[in-house]
């Protein structure tokens, strides 16, 4: 009890210094948490991927499409329980700044492969029966204020022209990590429109999404799909949905690595600040520690006081920093719009924040604790006055 009392009172002894150090820790822990959340958001697509879905794309590049007639051939492969397709549309809503992913999909099959997109049967029916209808995610609807029945105009880039869609359904995510920032519309509508505008660009799709019954057979089925189209006009590359998503992440790997490094640099800087605070504290109180030693208190008690004070400061900063991470991340997510489809502070991030704070508290106290444990009593007492 006296031990804790001493730690607490020592911690509050220099209120300004402790306050500024805690403030520094708050900023560092908050920045660390926010940066880790950005990294998590980068991987959110891969994390949310299903192990029973494969993605088949053109083996040369994602830019090149695949013929629509591959669909039925793939469907016949043993172990395939469903197949659909999606094509990247790349339209612009008002300005380029308003980015959100848009896909032309097979309205009849696509959503059966994605049970995590929750749509009421009535809305689904409305979408399927309206050729110019679209389905949008809840986050997208919230960001731009879209409602069922609204018209969304898009300016085509890959598929030129002015396009217009009516919102027929808004889907929710089955889990917190489900991407609800997407926009889906009928591939049939796109294909028919292209027949009039550019006939040679019809009957092509971007990727096939394949549902398989047994995740253990993913590699085998992928090989079978790719072998089927070997030496054809459009050879395929089939991989798990997770690998497909990670392929996107790897394109921006340098940014993710930079963010990771910065997050640790932030912690290192606050560690230096904290170590300086603890060193000053121990130096100022060396006479008190020497007195305690003279009275018979051992090095364990004294180093315990230093570690306790250091941890009290770092954990106070961590507590406030973690509490602030949630509202700041929320605001950050709003500011970013649909750039990060899934942006939330995970429990793992909170654990890492706590671990970082504990590490800072412990490491910052090491040198002062060693000094106090080793300083001869006479030398410590001599530094008085």
């Amino acid at each position, binding site marked *: 009890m*006296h031990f804790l009392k001493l730690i607490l009172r020592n911690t509050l*002894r220099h209120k300004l210094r402790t306050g500024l150090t805690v403030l520094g820790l708050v900023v560092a822990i908050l920045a660390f948490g926010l940066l880790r959340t950005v990294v998590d958001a980068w991987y959110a697509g891969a994390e949310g991927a299903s192990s029973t879905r494969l993605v088949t794309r053109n083996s040369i590049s994602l830019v090149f499409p695949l013929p629509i007639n591959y669909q039925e051939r793939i469907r016949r492969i043993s172990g395939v329980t469903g197949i659909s397709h999606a094509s990247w549309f790349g339209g612009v809503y008002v300005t380029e700044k308003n980015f959100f992913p848009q896909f032309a999909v097979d309205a009849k099959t696509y959503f059966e492969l994605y049970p995590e997109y929750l749509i009421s049967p009535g809305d689904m029916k409305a979408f399927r029966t309206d050729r110019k209808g679209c389905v949008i995610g809840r986050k997208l609807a919230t960001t731009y204020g879209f409602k069922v029945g609204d018209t969304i105009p898009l300016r085509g880039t890959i598929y030129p022209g002015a396009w217009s869609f009516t919102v027929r359904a808004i889907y929710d995510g089955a889990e917190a990590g489900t991407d609800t920032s997407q926009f889906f519309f009928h591939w049939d509508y796109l294909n028919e429109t292209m027949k009039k505008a550019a006939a040679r660009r019809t009957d092509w799709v971007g990727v096939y999404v394949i549902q398989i019954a047994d995740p253990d057979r993913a590699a085998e089925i992928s090989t079978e799909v790719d072998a089927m189209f070997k030496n054809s006009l459009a050879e395929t590359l089939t991989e798990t949905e997770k690998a497909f998503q990670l392929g996107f992440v790897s394109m921006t790997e340098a940014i993710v690595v930079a963010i990771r490094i910065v997050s640790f640099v932030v912690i290192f800087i606050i560690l230096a600040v904290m170590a300086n605070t603890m060193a000053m504290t121990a130096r100022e109180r060396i006479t008190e520690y020497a*007195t305690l*030693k*003279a*009275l018979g208190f051992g090095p364990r008690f004294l180093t315990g006081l230093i570690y306790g004070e250091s941890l009290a400061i770092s954990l106070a900063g961590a507590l406030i920093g973690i509490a602030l991470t949630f509202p700041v991340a929320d605001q950050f997510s709003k500011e970013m719009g649909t750039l990060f489809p899934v942006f939330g502070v995970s429990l793992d991030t909170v654990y890492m924040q706590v671990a970082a704070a504990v590490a800072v508290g412990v490491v910052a106290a090491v040198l002062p604790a060693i000094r106090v444990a080793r300083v001869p009593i*006479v030398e410590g*007492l001599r530094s*008085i*006055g």
Partner: protein
Amino acid sequence: MNPLPPAIIEIRHLTKSYRRGDQIVPVLTNISFDIRSGEFIALMGPSGSGKSTLLNLIAGIDKPDSGSLRVNGIDIATLSEGELADWRAANVGFIFQFYNLMPVLTAFENVELPLLLTRLPRNQRRERVELALAMVGLTDRVEHYPSELSGGQQQRVAIARAFITDPVLLVADEPTGDLDRTSADDILAMLARLNSEMGKTIIMVTHDPHAARSAHLIRHLDKGELDVTLEH
């Protein structure tokens, strides 16, 4: 005539030097003398004479280069750091020139501090601390922090802290050095009472001849050697 009390401290051929850069500076040279139980000794001498070093050695907060220093039959020069810490906690009460109280603890908590190293239960600790503070006349300052007390009052708290564990030996390094004459006289009277009424053996380092006159014996140190012994 009463027989002389037994020697509680036996110092034999004690030598201590410090290293200053490449030089070795001798501080104490071949010191030998006894201190008897219940004695009140003043150690005097000019600055650098080695009196504080001798006090530190007797109190077990420094170690000699050679010689033996037996307190109650134990040669404390041979004890390890951990054993010395336990020995100090049980046998020595410290009174410093600048009081050396913990500024974040109240007078009560400062006096209670050495008792935390004992197995005394909380209620007994409280009783002892209240009694000690009453003995030094600070019953009404129990909850005051050192910064809220005068120098004399702080030194009285330090004295209460020094005798709270009932040690055999009290060591005082310039206990009146930072006090005005009235407060200094109070402190000296208190030490004299601890010696006469509680039988505490007291070793006090002082520059002040007036303070030294409170002791039974005055030992002078000069250039690391015991010089003259005055008895009164």
